[in-house]
C-alpha cells in the first residue's frame, strides 16, 4: 500500500493510513453496496479537529466501489518462465493516493516550467511530466526502507521517496529551505534511502549496485532500485555493472525508463538493439507499459520478490514518454512532431488512464477528483510562493560541507588574502 511519508519533521505531513475494507474482489463493472468510506483527507487537513468532523460530514450520497480488479497488459519476458500477474487489484484508497501523487508530480513539474520561464529557476531543469506512473508505480511496489537511485530527471522520485513539494521547489529556486539547502539544485536532491539525482549519465547505475551490495552485506533484506534512461542504456559502465551484479547476486532492480529519446536522439538512432529489457543478456528482463501505474506496480512487486529471494538482479524496461523536451532549453519538437506528443497525451496519459478506470468503476466521483486537483493546485501554489520568497543560502554557507566530521578549516577565496570558513 502506498504511503507518502517524509522522514523529516514536517508538521503538515502525516502518514496516510486507510483501513483496508475486507470485501471479496468483485468483477470490475458491478457496483457493490459497501459501508461509507471516508475519502482520504489531504495531509494539510488532517488535524484532530478536522478528522473528527470528517466522520460526521462524510459524503452520504455516494456508495463507492471499495476495490476493483483490472486487466493489465502482459509483459514481454526475457529469460523468465513467468511474469507478473495479468490482473491488478486496486482499492479505492490506493487509487485516490496514486491519483493525488501523480497529479502532484504533474502540477509540480508544470509549475517548475512556469517558474523557469520567469527566470526564477535557472540552470538545469529536466521535467518529468508524462512519466508519473513510473515513479508512483515503482514506489508502491517497494518499501520506503528500500533504496532508490536515479539520474537527473529526479523531481518525481524526490517526492515519492519522502521529499515535500516545498523543499523540492525551494531547491529548484536555490533557496535555503531547499532539500539540499539550495546547494544542490535540480539534479542533486537527496532523502533517506534516495541517492539522488545524479548528473553524469549512467554513473548512477554502478552506485545503485553498490547500494545493493551494502544491502546484501548487511543482510537487511532491502533492495535497491536503480534507474536509467534509454540514452544511458548504451553506457559501458552499465554493462560492467550487469556483470558484477549478476556474478555477486546483488539485490538490484535495474529499470530502464525508455521515453524514446535520449536528449534529441531517438532510440533507433542510438541503439543497435532497442530491446532494452534484453540488454542485460544473462539478467532476466521484463518490458512493460510504463504509462499504466498498475502495470508498473505489479512488475515492481514481481521484481522485488525476485531480488529478495536471492536470485540476483533483474531488469525492467518501462515504456513511457516525456511531454517536455529533454530539459527546459529544449523545446522538444525538433526531433519529434507535435502530433506525436498530442497523441500520447490523448491516448496514454497516465493520470487520465487512472482517472478513467476509477470513474468507470465508480471508485470515485468526478467532484472528488476535482477536489483533489484543487488541493494539489493549492499545495503547489503555496510551495511556489515559499520557493520564490525564501531567502537564498547565506554567503558563509558557500564553503561548508566539503568534508564530513572534520574540524572547521579555512578555504582560499578568490585571492590569497581572502580566507573563507568551512565547517562540516
Amino acid at each position, binding site marked *: 500500500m502506498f504511503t507518502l511519508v517524509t522522514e523529516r519533521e514536517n508538521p503538515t505531513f502525516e502518514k496516510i493510513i486507510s483501513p483496508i475494507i475486507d470485501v471479496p474482489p468483485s468483477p470490475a463493472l458491478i457496483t457493490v453496496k459497501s459501508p461509507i468510506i471516508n475519502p482520504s483527507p489531504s495531509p494539510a487537513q488532517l488535524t484532530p479537529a478536522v478528522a473528527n468532523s470528517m466522520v460526521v460530514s462524510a459524503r452520504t450520497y455516494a456508495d463507492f466501489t471499495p476495490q476493483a480488479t483490472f486487466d493489465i497488459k502482459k509483459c514481454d519476458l526475457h529469460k523468465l518462465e513467468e511474469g507478473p500477474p495479468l490482473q491488478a487489484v486496486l482499492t479505492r484508497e490506493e487509487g485516490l493516493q496514486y491519483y493525488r501523487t501523480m497529479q502532484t508530480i504533474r502540477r509540480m513539474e508544470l509549475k517548475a516550467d512556469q517558474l523557469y520561464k520567469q527566470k526564477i529557476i535557472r540552470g538545469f531543469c529536466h521535467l518529468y511530466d508524462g512519466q508519473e506512473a513510473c515513479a508512483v508505480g515503482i514506489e508502491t511496489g517497494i518499501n520506503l526502507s528500500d*533504496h532508490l*537511485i536515479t539520474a537527473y530527471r529526479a523531481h518525481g522520485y524526490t517526492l515519492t521517496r519522502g521529499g515535500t513539494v516545498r523543499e523540492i521547489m525551494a531547491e529548484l529556486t536555490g533557496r535555503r529551505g531547499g532539500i*539540499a*539547502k*539550495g*546547494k*544542490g539544485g535540480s539534479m*542533486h536532491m*537527496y532523502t533517506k534511502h534516495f*541517492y*539522488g539525482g*545524479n*548528473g*553524469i549519465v549512467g*554513473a548512477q*547505475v*554502478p*552506485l*545503485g*549496485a*553498490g*547500494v*545493493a*551490495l*551494502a*544491502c546484501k*552485506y*548487511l543482510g537487511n533484506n532491502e533492495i*535497491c532500485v536503480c534507474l536509467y534512461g534509454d540514452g544511458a542504456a548504451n553506457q*559501458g*559502465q552499465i554493462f*560492467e*555493472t550487469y*556483470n*558484477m551484479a549478476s*556474478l*555477486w547476486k546483488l539485490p538490484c532492480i535495474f529499470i530502464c525508463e525508455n521515453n524514446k529519446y535520449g536528449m534529441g536522439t531517438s532510440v533507433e538512432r542510438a541503439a543497435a538493439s532497442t530491446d532494452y529489457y534484453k540488454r542485460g543478456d544473462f539478467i532476466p528482463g521484463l518490458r512493460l507499459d510504463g504509462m499504466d501505474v498498475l502495470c508498473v506496480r505489479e512488475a515492481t512487486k514481481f521484481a522485488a520478490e525476485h531480488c529478495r529471494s536471492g536470485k540476483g538482479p533483474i531488469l525492467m524496461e518501462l515504456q513511457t514518454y516525456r511531454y517536455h523536451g529533454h530539459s527546459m532549453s529544449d523545446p522538444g519538437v525538433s526531433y519529434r512532431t507535435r502530433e506525436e506528443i498530442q497523441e500520447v497525451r490523448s491516448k496514454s496519459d497516465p493520470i487520465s488512464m487512472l482517472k478513467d478506470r476509477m470513474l468507470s468503476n465508480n471508485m470515485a466521483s468526478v467532484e472528488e477528483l476535482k477536489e483533489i486537483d484543487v488541493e494539489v493546485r493549492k499545495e503547489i501554489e503555496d510551495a511556489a510562493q515559499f520557493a520564490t520568497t525564501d531567502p537564498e543560502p547565506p554567503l558563509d*554557507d558557500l564553503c*561548508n*560541507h*566539503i*568534508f*564530513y*566530521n*572534520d574540524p572547521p*578549516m579555512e*578555504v582560499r577565496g578568490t585571492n*590569497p588574502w581572502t580566507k573563507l570558513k568551512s565547517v*562540516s
Partner: protein
Amino acid sequence: MASLRSFLRSGKNAVSAVLRREFHGTPPAAVQVTVRDALNQALDEELERDERVFLLGEEVAQYDGAYKVSRGLWKKYGDKRIIDTPITEMGFAGIAVGAAMAGLRPICEFMTFNFSMQAIDQVINSAAKTYYMSAGLQPVPIVFRGPNGASAGVAAQHSQCFAAWYGHCPGLKVVSPWSAEDAKGLLKSAIRDDNPVVFLENELMYGVPFEMSEEAQSKDFLLPIGKAKIERQGNHVTLVSHSRMVSLCLDAAAVLAKEGIECEVINMRTIRPLDAEAIETSVMKTNHLITVEGGWPQFGVGAEILARIMEGKDFFICF
C-alpha cells in the same frame, strides 16, 4: 636526537634494529618492517576493528594482491570482506562508492592509479562532490588506494603520478606516504576518515624496510592527515617532497652534508590538504626551497607549493 633521526632515515642505509634482550622483561622496541607489511597490518587491523570495512579490487583476494599488499587477508576474512573484481574499474569503483553511500566503509584498490583514470568520474563526481552537493546529507567514507607514479621500466602508460590531478579537487583528501610508519598510520587514518581519501602508494617502496617504533606497532597507531613531517633538520635549504622522492632527498642531504650544507627535508605525507604552514616555517628559517616530486612539473605539486609560498604573508620578508 641526531642518532634517532639517522635511524629513521632511508631504509637502505638503516642500521639493524635495536632489539632489547628478552631477559630484561621489556618487549622489543623498534623493528624492521617493509612498507608492504605495514600496509598489510593496517588493512588487517582496520578490517578486524570495524565490520563495515571491506576491500575490493582486482586480484586482492585469491591472488593475495597484485603486489601482495593484501596477502593473507582473504584467507582470514573470506569472500564477503575481500572481493575480487573483474577488470572493470569504472564499474567497481562506482559500486564501491555506492556501498559507501549506503553505510559501508569500502577500500577500493586500483592496481595502479593509471587505471583509476577509467574510473575517475566516480572518484570525483560521485565520491568527492556528493557531500557538498547534498549540503551535508550524504557522506562518502571511502578509500581509493594503490601504487602511484613511476615504477621500474613499466613504460609511459603505467608510470603517471596522479598527486596533482587528485590534489586539485575539493572534497577529496589525498595522501602520499613514504615510510612504513607513514603507510600504516596514514592508511589507518584514511580508513577511519569519513571522507573520500585517495591513498597514493608507490610500488618501488613496497619492499623497502623501515624502522618501526614500538608506538607505531600498536593497533591504534594513527597519523593525522594534513600534517607534514620533518625528516631531517637543517638550516641552509629546505627540500620538500612526498613518497619515494623523500628517499632521494635524504640521500642528497647526506651528500651535501659532507660539503657543509645542511638540508631540511620535509616529508609532505599529505598532498591535500597541503601543510603549507610547515613548509613556510621551514622556508622562513632557510630562505631556500626546492620541491622534489615524481610527477610532471607543469601544473604539479611543486608548482602549487611554490605558488603558496609566493602568496604567503612572509614571502617578501624572506627576500
